[in-house]
């Protein structure tokens, strides 16, 4: 069965990866493919990730396509990104003739990028002085987001929330610097259920937010990074790669918008962006958003325990 689709939006990072790999030995471009109902995740050379998804959530590493029953392609099929289709004339996607083909025995999915709109994170344009949300606004957003996560069944498992509380509490008892909280959270890699364990999503949201602020000089501190080889000993490969993409600031629009709104002091905008995340996985969106909120607290010298408390309260839970 052959399926041809035209992409709606394509992340800037996708093009970089495709163009880069077009110049490599591309007979073996795809290392691994995961097929789900809404999404195909393609691991390409050097562990780069391209996500092809019918979900409307845009990301640097995503190609958004119209709704189609992706699940008709069998999970685990051996895919090949057809190198012949990757011809680079210009980096402007709407002027290029780049095509992306995923082929397998009996199945072929071709995605045309030529009419797609390119998507890039806006955090890159954030410079200079920032008007962060006030502590009270962060807590209001956290409570409302906790509520939204609860009503969409996106709250991380209580066991994960308890573990996060313990880590955050420990780091908050000293000075909760980004690095200290991050080190604590990293101990939780792989904790939780789902394709991307909840703790991994919290870490992604936290580190991506901090790094976006650090990269624009809005928060002092070191760049947070992870070692993929170490991560894969504690969580599954897909989760580890997605985590690394986000931490390297290949952001999705939920995290990106939350960071931008936080920097602008726009509480309503931050809540809206966090809600955008809720379409991710089972509780991935809720977890990632929680990570962003904890980072916003740490960046503002607000006790992250308060933020966690507001989220939990909003979700109608009690961690006692």
């Amino acid at each position: 069965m052959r399926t041809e689709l035209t992409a709606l939006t394509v992340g800037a990072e996708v093009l970089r990866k495709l163009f880069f790999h077009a110049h490599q030995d591309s007979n073996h471009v795809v290392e691994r493919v995961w097929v789900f109902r809404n999404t195909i995740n393609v691991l390409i050379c050097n562990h780069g990730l391209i996500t092809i998804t019918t979900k409307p959530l845009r990301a640097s590493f995503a190609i958004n396509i119209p709704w189609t029953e992706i699940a008709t392609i069998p999970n685990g099929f051996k895919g090949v990104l057809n190198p012949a289709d990757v011809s680079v004339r210009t980096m402007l996607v709407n002027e290029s003739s780049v095509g992306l083909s995923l082929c397998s025995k009996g199945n072929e999915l071709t995605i045309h990028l030529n009419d797609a709109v390119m998507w890039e994170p806006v955090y890159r344009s954030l410079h200079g002085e920032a008007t962060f949300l006030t502590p009270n606004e962060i807590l209001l957003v956290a409570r409302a987001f906790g509520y939204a996560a609860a009503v969409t069944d996106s709250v991380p498992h209580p066991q994960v929330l308890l573990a996060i509380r313990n880590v955050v509490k420990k780091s908050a008892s000293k000075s909760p610097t980004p690095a200290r909280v991050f080190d604590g959270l990293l101990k939780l890699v792989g904790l939780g259920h789902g394709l991307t364990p909840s703790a991994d999503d919290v870490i992604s949201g936290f580190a991506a937010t901090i790094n976006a602020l650090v990269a624009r000089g809005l928060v002092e501190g070191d760049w947070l990074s992870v070692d993929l080889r170490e991560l894969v000993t504690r969580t599954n490969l897909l989760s580890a790669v997605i985590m690394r993409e986000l931490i390297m600031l290949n952001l999705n629009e939920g995290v990106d918008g939350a960071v931008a709104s936080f920097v602008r002091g726009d509480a309503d905008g931050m809540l809206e962006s966090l809600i955008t995340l809720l379409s991710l996985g089972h509780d991935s969106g809720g977890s990632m958003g929680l990570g962003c909120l904890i980072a916003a607290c740490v960046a503002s010298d607000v006790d992250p325990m308060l933020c966690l408390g507001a989220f939990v309260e909003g979700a109608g839970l009690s961690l006692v």
Partner: protein
Amino acid sequence: MASSSIKEEIEKANKKAVERMMESEPHWVDMGVAERVIPDLKGMKLLHAGPPITWDRVSGPLKGALIGAVIYEGWADTPEKAERLLKTGEVVFEPTHPHRVVGPMAGVVSPSMPVFIFYDPKFGNYAYTNMNEGLGKVLRYGAYGKEVIDRLKWMAEVLYPVLKATIEEIRKDRKPGLNFKNIIAQALHMGDECHNRYVAANALLLKEISPYMFSTGIDRKDVIAAYNFIARNIIFPLNMGMAAAKLMTLAAHGIEYSTIVTVMTRNGTDMGIWVSSLGEEWFTAPAPIPKGVWFPGYSEKDANPDIGDSSITETAGFGGFAMAAAPAIISYVGSTVEFAIENTKRMYEITYTKHKYFTIPYLGFQGTPTGVDIRKVVKTGITPTINTGVAHKEPGIGQVGAGIVQFPIEPFKAALRRFAQKYGI
């Protein structure tokens, strides 16, 4: 630790909202002149489909329909004068929904236009809609030439009295009037989806009303003209189906904690929704352009963004959501029969339940997807997909095709944000 209370609260509210939506009993009960029956439609005021809009952002077809309505009312004798009155605010225009009115495409209702009166005896609500003019060059698609105004006048002078007398005859026989829910349910079994295809519903309507029409005592020539007008206009029951849907969704509106959508509508510039627990607050985004089948000589570049209150049918659980019941609709709106079936199946993922009374034979008589839940839209990223007529983007031209349109996700996200702010803090 448990968040069950929040979810239980919403579950209880949504169950109530959708139950009321399904149990609503919309009846056609009367005809009347708009300004005499519609609340707050007085003076030089017009109603239009979709969310509120200002003149500088009004789309071509809506502009054309408003101009046409000003001419129809006699407030101006040229399009230029009519436009000036609208631009200066001497003629005001407001959305239909807060007035309990619905109208397809531009949905323009003016004070002296005759309207259908629908009533739901179960929940005591009224809703109103104008009479359908047919396809092609018509006011609701933004055309306002002499033939359009003449037709509207004929409808007021000939069709309206016949229908008024007909429904009075029907009421003598059965109270409170003609049950339109039964017509929709039956038409879904006969190949209609009751948004863009009303072929079966039209036949059913005529079967129901003809004996009464011909016993009204009105001049036989007028009765035959009215009968022929309805018989030749296969989309005639659309407005009635919309009024019925409005009553169903009105019954579901205003329930605290409910996340069910009770209005989905477009004005040719924006689309907007209401949510049961969030009152009459509009959540809007730019209206998308339908993917369509074009009339000869037209193409996508002529198309205006989506317009009309007719998506109230999908809000109530039929129309595009019941496309699996109406494979023949594809010849009008494009795409494939497989898509029609797939679309209905996909809408189950964002709706609360399957309809008790509206069922689809092809799907083993499953109920239609009913009660769009903003939580499910945000969670799945799937948005309501409907079928629709397409208007030319310039005023005064009319219909150029029909197609499929998928709503943007932004209004649903904004509504969830407001919901979290209202109940989460």
